[in-house]
């Protein structure tokens, strides 16, 4: 049943400083509301438990994409449409562009933000695998200041993140270090459009002849949170994809990935299916590198 909207408060302080002051004054009392593509659904279905919200959608301080010499910094308030329209991101971070295009529909992409997608912290979210594979860092901001940490440290467990109640995500930075890398991303869902993933894998690799000199894997729905697949990466680093070696390399990669996979049975899929398909996606990527 729908909620009674009169029971919910929403404010829209004019500046980022004013929002941070409000969050700091009463930590945990106010929930930030950006594009509303998650919280408004909860409101409409009577599941919204937070009764005091503070809008951050209008904050220009959070809605930016800055290209520097060594990194692309994306403000938490950048929408998926902003990301898809950015020519530098399109040229250098195709995995992010692809995952942004999978996130909801055009109408939702016009509202939904990168910060919201990350903070909603679904293990099945679309952009985290790409951000993990790209080795992104994340900057958090509060009245007390900012802190920057590797994005791998942001997700703690199912729907749990390091963000304090007085903090907002400020931005995500992705290094401009992937020229010459082969890039792969695939989402497996029920349909092409408007489907939450059963499993997704983003992958980057650098090859010297047939040898993997770097490999980076980020996955959705493989565990209780978005993860970097470090065991599979370690098993594959330095291995050869030459005709005589590729089958053994793939076996080693699949075995390591399976060992770090802790999937669940849920409404969208089964653990057995997810685990098998994750291995298939890794194999598809590795064979595409050799081909």
């Amino acid at each position, binding site marked *: 049943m729908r909620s009674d909207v009169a029971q919910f408060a929403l404010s*829209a302080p004019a500046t980022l400083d004013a929002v941070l002051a409000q969050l700091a004054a009463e930590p945990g009392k106010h929930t930030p509301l950006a594009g509303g593509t998650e919280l408004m659904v909860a409101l409409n279905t009577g599941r919204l438990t937070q009764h005091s919200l503070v809008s951050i959608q209008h904050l220009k301080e959070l809605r930016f994409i800055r290209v520097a010499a060594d990194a692309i910094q994306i403000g938490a308030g950048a929408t998926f449409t902003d990301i898809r329209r950015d020519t530098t991101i399109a040229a250098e971070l195709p995995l992010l562009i692809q995952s942004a295009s999978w996130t*909801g529909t055009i*109408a939702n992409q016009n509202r939904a933000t990168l910060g919201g997608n990350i903070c909603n912290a679904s293990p099945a979210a679309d952009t985290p695998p790409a951000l993990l594979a790209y080795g992104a860092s994340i900057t958090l901001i509060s009245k007390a200041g900012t802190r920057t940490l590797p994005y791998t440290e942001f997700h703690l467990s199912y729907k749990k993140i390091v963000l304090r109640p007085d903090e907002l995500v400020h931005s995500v930075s992705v290094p401009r270090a992937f020229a010459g890398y082969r890039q792969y991303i695939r989402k497996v869902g029920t349909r092409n459009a408007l489907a939450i993933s059963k499993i997704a894998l983003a992958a980057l690799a650098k090859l010297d002849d047939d040898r993997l000199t770097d490999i980076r894997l980020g996955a959705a729905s493989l565990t209780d949170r978005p993860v970097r697949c470090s065991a599979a990466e370690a098993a594959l680093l330095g291995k050869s994809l030459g005709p005589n070696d590729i089958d053994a390399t793939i076996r080693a990669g699949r075995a390591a990935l399976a060992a770090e996979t802790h999937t669940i049975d849920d409404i969208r899929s089964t653990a057995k299916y997810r685990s098998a398909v994750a291995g298939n996606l890794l194999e598809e990527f590795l064979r595409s590198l050799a081909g």
Partner: protein
Amino acid sequence: MSLVQLTVNGKPQHLDVPPMKRLLDVLREDLHLTGTKEGCGEGECGACAVLVDGELVNSCLVPALQVNGARICTIEGVSTEGRLHPIQQCFLERGGAQCGICTPGMILATHHLLDKHPNPTLEQIQEGLAGNLCRCTGYMRIFESVQEAAKLGAS
């Protein structure tokens, strides 16, 4: 309650509404613009799509306070001086509208699509309308309507 000022179909509006009231309900209940339909209420079906500052959004997911100062275009604002917009005319002539529930959202999604891609490929049309569900037409006549509207240069 919050004071919200917005421009709807070119007309300035001053409202005193709960800040979390959905734009969809503001349009239908406060402004009596019932052309915007409610389907799923979860941002999946596009029946409530409108243009906010030129961008397509699902009005069931937008709280009133977040459109303070915005320009809104609903299906009622698409036609001018009682004449159908060319997109509407194409949907009418090509059988792109049947029961009519999805049609306002389809028209506005098409408007947004042709604004960004005046000569869309079939793939761009499919992506542009992927958020608008239709249970009558099977979509083919809708795609033809959009292609015809693009030929006429309608955006």
